[in-house]
């Protein structure tokens, strides 16, 4: 194994909270505030890790397993993503399906943990999470299928290898896939057109409501897993949108990191300029993502 393969997982583990910080800073700039420091997410995680955990007597091991297994699953998924010019540590034929369903595992465990608490409020959030992700999943898988077919490779590494053989055909497919992945990124990470990450105790939220009964280090794990998930989807988006390579390792990594920062700023801009959609409108947004991904598949197949 090449040492450079570890660059991306380490960067992701180190910089995922920074990405959330950049999103928050962008939103603050739009609102005319100074906003929290860029490093605030690190401090939040640090603070949570030093607290004790409180468990309700009605909960079982599922609530405790939820955040830990999610974190492990997300780190595994990160290991399958190539980044910049660096290869992924884990790569095998069909790993794109494992990638998609590792996030499925995360979702299942978080939903199970939310239901385990027996709180009707958390059950409501769990129900929403499952409803929307059922629509986000075909969009992600169709987009990945289109890219895999275009690259002729059944693994994420080959798919994002950046070999743009015939730009006249591949660029429209890349754009459509990027649109689908972008919408899935917003939906899966509880960003604004789908879910408002700032609201607490409001009847519209999805992700936040599922971790209401998690506390201390568990909350830190769940939050860190969510940040890493956001990083993973953003890295996927960057891989699709920035397929060019210079051939110099540090330049490629720097380019990819700059693109990640741009994605973070983009999320901040979307959050500042859009209102959250009504819940009945969210499936339409996700269907639009499915339509884009389906169009990409059709373009590749023809």
């Amino acid at each position, binding site marked *: 194994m090449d040492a450079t393969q570890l660059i991306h997982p380490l960067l992701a583990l180190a910089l995922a909270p920074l990405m959330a910080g950049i999103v928050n800073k962008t939103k603050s700039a739009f609102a005319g505030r100074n906003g929290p420091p860029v490093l605030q997410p690190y401090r939040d995680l640090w603070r949570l890790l030093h607290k004790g955990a409180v468990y309700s007597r009605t909960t079982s091991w599922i609530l405790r397993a939820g955040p830990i297994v999610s974190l492990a699953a997300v780190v595994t998924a990160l290991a399958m993503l190539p980044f910049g010019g660096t290869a992924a540590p884990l790569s095998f034929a069909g790993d794109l399906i494992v990638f998609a369903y590792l996030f499925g595992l995360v979702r299942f465990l978080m939903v199970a943990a939310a239901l385990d608490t027996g709180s009707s409020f958390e059950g409501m959030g769990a129900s929403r999470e499952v409803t929307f992700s059922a629509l986000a999943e075909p969009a992600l898988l169709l987009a990945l299928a289109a890219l895999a077919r275009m690259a002729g490779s059944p693994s994420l590494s080959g798919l994002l290898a950046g070999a743009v053989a015939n730009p006249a055909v591949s660029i*429209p497919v890349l*754009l*459509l896939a990027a649109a689908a992945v972008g919408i899935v990124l917003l939906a899966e990470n509880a960003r604004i057109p789908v879910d408002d990450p700032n609201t607490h105790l409001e009847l519209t939220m999805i992700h936040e409501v599922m971790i209401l009964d998690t506390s201390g280090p568990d909350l830190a794990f769940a939050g860190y897993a969510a940040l890493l998930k956001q990083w993973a989807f953003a890295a996927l988006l960057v891989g699709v949108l920035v397929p060019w390579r210079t051939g110099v390792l540090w330049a490629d990594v720097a380019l990819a990191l700059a693109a990640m920062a741009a994605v973070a700023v983009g999320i901040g801009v979307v959050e500042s300029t859009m209102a959250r959609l009504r819940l009945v409108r969210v499936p*339409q947004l996700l*269907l*639009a993502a499915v*339509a884009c991904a389906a*169009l990409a598949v*059709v373009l590749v197949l023809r």
Partner: protein
Amino acid sequence: MDFWVNCLVVLIAMTNLRLLGSSRVVSCVHTVAFQGVLLGVLAIVGASGGLAAHGIVLAAVNIVLKGLVFPWLLMRALRETHLRREVEPAIGFGASMLLGVLLIGICLWIGSRLPLPVGVQASPLLVPAALFTLMVGLFMIVAGRKALTQVVGYLSIENGITAFGLGFALKEALLVELGILLDAFMAVFVMGIIIFHISREFDHIDAGELSALKD
């Protein structure tokens, strides 16, 4: 060049999906205007072998008329009729979106079978995209319940025909295209006035109510 044509064609297909999915009349009008501008740009980019004067004229007329004049006329009609801003289609947004994906498939299939005249160097995606735009327009006319969304559907059909025309015979088509554009201009102008009169007479522009009319 082929690269930009493909990008524009895909963008046009995406504006069609947005037409099917948007819930506000205003965003429908803006989307169809954007589509017109895209077509104008397509006319410039797609002109093979250097830009001819008629290509530029066609593109300019397209952009000005469809990007500026039509939306202005429609927005005025919208303002004066004090319309509720929701589209309220007869077929739901989710179903229309799925139908849209289905239509894309059908259009690609038809586009692959349609024999093109010899010597035409159109992008392989142009004909399906034009057909798709046309069909979305038809769908909006059938499924839309407001007179204004039907005008938008009409404009989408017009865009489809323009896209179709751009793929072929750029040499002789100038007069034909300008004629069609003039027709479309008159049609939108008259439709705006008619919508205003309908809404003043009946206090709504719901086309579904037409079936209840008896003479």
